[in-house]
């Protein structure tokens, strides 16, 4: 069953078309990868689904409900959660408080319960010293904290926007394991990524965007041998 379904979703900024007629589906308990060259509209797509921007036209359905025009926090309440391409920790809060934010406002837990839940997520993601300020954390830890914050809203669908960017090889392996672990709990995940190895290892299905349009979609093997994809995107990396 499709948990997320977009129908001809478009988004313009002034005269610039960032997304154009994007119709995709995400099935329950699936890991979908979104790839595409810079400026293809990957992050805009995430932002439109998560409610940072509203679509200029089109329709977004989530769990069978129309959430096209819902605001960001309403989409969060509906069960869509996300991390950010560039990490956005809340520096006014410490590690556990950052995670608690999701539990308190995403899932409406009272403060005490939120704290307990958040500690669970920290343990799950192997985050220690939970009273640390953000300034005392490593890049990997901040990324994990953001995932924990997203998980704490107890979403049905999780968007991971380039979580691997800037990580070294060991850290990337660590993160891949983490994503697998989350998926094994029954989470549906959309992963936006540049690193092809990650896509190949994690995803069940890949959507390729170019110039704001869906270029093609399918399994990694199928997509990576599509000549249009190779010229548009893979040509430079040639990992096929």
């Amino acid at each position: 069953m499709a948990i997320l379904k977009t129908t001809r979703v478009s988004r313009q900024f002034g005269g610039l078309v960032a997304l154009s007629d994007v119709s995709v589906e995400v099935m329950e308990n699936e890991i979908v990868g979104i790839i595409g060259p810079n400026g293809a509209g990957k992050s805009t797509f995430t932002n439109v689904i998560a409610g940072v921007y509203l679509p200029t036209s089109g329709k977004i359905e989530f769990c069978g409900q129309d959430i096209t025009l819902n605001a960001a926090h309403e989409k969060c309440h509906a069960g869509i959660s996300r991390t950010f391409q560039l990490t956005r920790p809340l520096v006014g809060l410490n590690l556990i408080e950052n995670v608690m934010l999701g539990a308190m406002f995403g899932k409406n837990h009272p403060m005490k319960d939120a704290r307990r839940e958040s500690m669970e997520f920290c343990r799950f993601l192997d985050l220690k010293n939970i009273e640390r300020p953000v300034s005392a954390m490593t890049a990997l830890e901040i990324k994990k904290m953001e995932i924990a914050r997203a998980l704490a809203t107890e979403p049905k669908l999780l968007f991971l926007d380039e979580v691997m960017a800037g990580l070294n090889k060991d850290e990337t392996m660590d993160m891949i394991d983490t994503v697998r672990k989350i998926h094994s709990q029954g989470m549906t995940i959309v992963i936006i990524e540049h690193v092809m190895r990650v896509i190949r290892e994690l995803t069940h299905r890949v959507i390729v965007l170019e110039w704001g349009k869906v270029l093609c979609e399918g399994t990694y093997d199928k997509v990576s041998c599509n000549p249009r994809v190779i010229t548009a995107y893979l040509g430079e990396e040639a990992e096929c």
Partner: protein
Amino acid sequence: MKYSKYLAVLVLFIVAAALPNYLGLYQLQIMNFVFVYIAFALSWDMLLRSGQLSFGIAGFAGIGGYTSVLCGYNFALSPILCILIGSAVAGIVALFVGSQVLKLRGLYFSIVTLAIGEIFRVIVRNLEVTGAAEGILLPNAIFMGNATKTYWLMFAIATFTIIISILFQKTRIYYALTSISNDEIVAASSGVNIFKYLVIIFVVTSAIQGMAGAAYWQIYASVTPEGAFNLGFALLPITMALFGGVGTTWGPVIGSAILSVTAEYLKLQFPHGHLLVYGFIMVAAILWFPSGIMGVFKQFTAKFNT
């Protein structure tokens, strides 16, 4: 160390409670200034914690002041009731205004709050029901001018503001406001209804400002457009909060206490140049203690702990 905090608060409370027995009427009058500035500075800081910088203190204090004096003048209601009505009206105005202007950010929000206060000033100055430019005189001051009772009233309002501030720092509102001021996109993506929390904090702080203004002008049994909407009420509390250190409950409290007592003290020492000295104090303070007195205090305790 953990209990010393509560001990300090207890001592402060006892000192405050004992003061009317030891202070003369003049010093009690100055305590009125201290308390009203605590209410203004702290409520302004509470809104600042959401990242919104308001110049609207004077406006809401004026609305509260005018409403309460008008109620007393026209309907001879009890002064306490007048103050509550003043507070409520300021809150209601904030609700209507806030639902429109809280979409603005940064300087745009600041200027609009300033303009709203000015609009109310011009309105009361031009209407006969509000006494026009000359203002309104009440027949009697609150508590018939009893300074001790007045002190307790202002003390109660300042304490109420402090308690609200502490509560807001300890409940989920703290997390909502901090996240909004840090990063609105993250806040919204984590499920925070930004607009709702901004409206809540705007209404609460405006109601506090309205209440403080209402009580203040009940003490002087009069209200004039230039006095009640005095822009000094917008700028002075801001400087006091910054002087004490923003983002904390006790920073604005300490800043208001020190600066309002200093202002009166300087006035006695230098009747003609007191504001000049006041200006130098502010500049020196900001250059040497950029994060306010609370910042210095925190640095000091941090050093002490390590």
